[in-house]
């Protein structure tokens, strides 16, 4: 029974990781690649670690596995958001067939603060005037 469960969980995890790797190689755009990495690989790692917990059937191993899974689920979106934000500021282009870029013109160019759009130019001019004074 546990053998069948281990085989099913590890096969599903390996398939998810393989599909994520193929998608990571074939996606046309940095942002799409980041999206692939966060979702599919997190699920695959969780499934394979769960199969390890079932195999050992021990409280210390299970708690260790739960700690790893919790940590990966917490940190993968944070890391993806940080690297996506950095690549947006570096000026990485989106794919040609992308429909829209909702952030366009909403970040201040120098201070990197997020704004709703209209008062953007005035604020930058104000800051420059203050610096001159």
């Amino acid at each position, binding site marked *: 029974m546990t053998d069948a469960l281990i085989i099913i969980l590890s096969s599903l995890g*390996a398939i998810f990781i393989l599909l994520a790797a193929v998608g990571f190689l074939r996606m046309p755009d940095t942002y799409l690649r980041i999206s692939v990495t966060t979702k599919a690989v997190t699920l695959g790692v969780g499934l394979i670690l769960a199969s390890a917990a079932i195999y050992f059937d021990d409280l210390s191993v299970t708690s*260790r596995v739960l700690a790893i899974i919790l940590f990966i689920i917490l*940190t993968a979106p944070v890391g993806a958001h*940080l690297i996506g934000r950095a690549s947006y500021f*570096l000026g990485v282009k989106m794919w040609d067939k992308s429909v829209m870029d909702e952030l366009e013109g909403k970040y201040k160019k120098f201070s*990197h603060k997020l704004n709703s759009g209209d008062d953007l130019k005035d604020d930058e001019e104000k800051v420059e005037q203050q610096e001159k004074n």
Partner: protein
Amino acid sequence: MTVEEYLYYIILPILAISVLLVFCRFVIGPKIADRVVALDLLITIGITIISIYSIVYDQSTFLDIAMILGLIAFLSTVAFSYYLEKRNKSKLDEEKRKHNND
């Protein structure tokens, strides 16, 4: 076929192929952000390979190293993105200073 043989002869080759595919993107990745994400992904697949090895050789202490690798992967991603953004910001500041002097 026992569970250990199945994991050793079927799951590990699948994971090895996916590591190779990610490594291709690590080599050809056009922007530096691609390389950072590929590094993160390589370490994350390394965690799964370690856990498969810990099942095959019946050594549960390998999972400690998997935990440490997860910590290091997050730390490296955060540090890379922080310094990339900072470098870009210092370039922008230089541009701004030149613009004001003109």
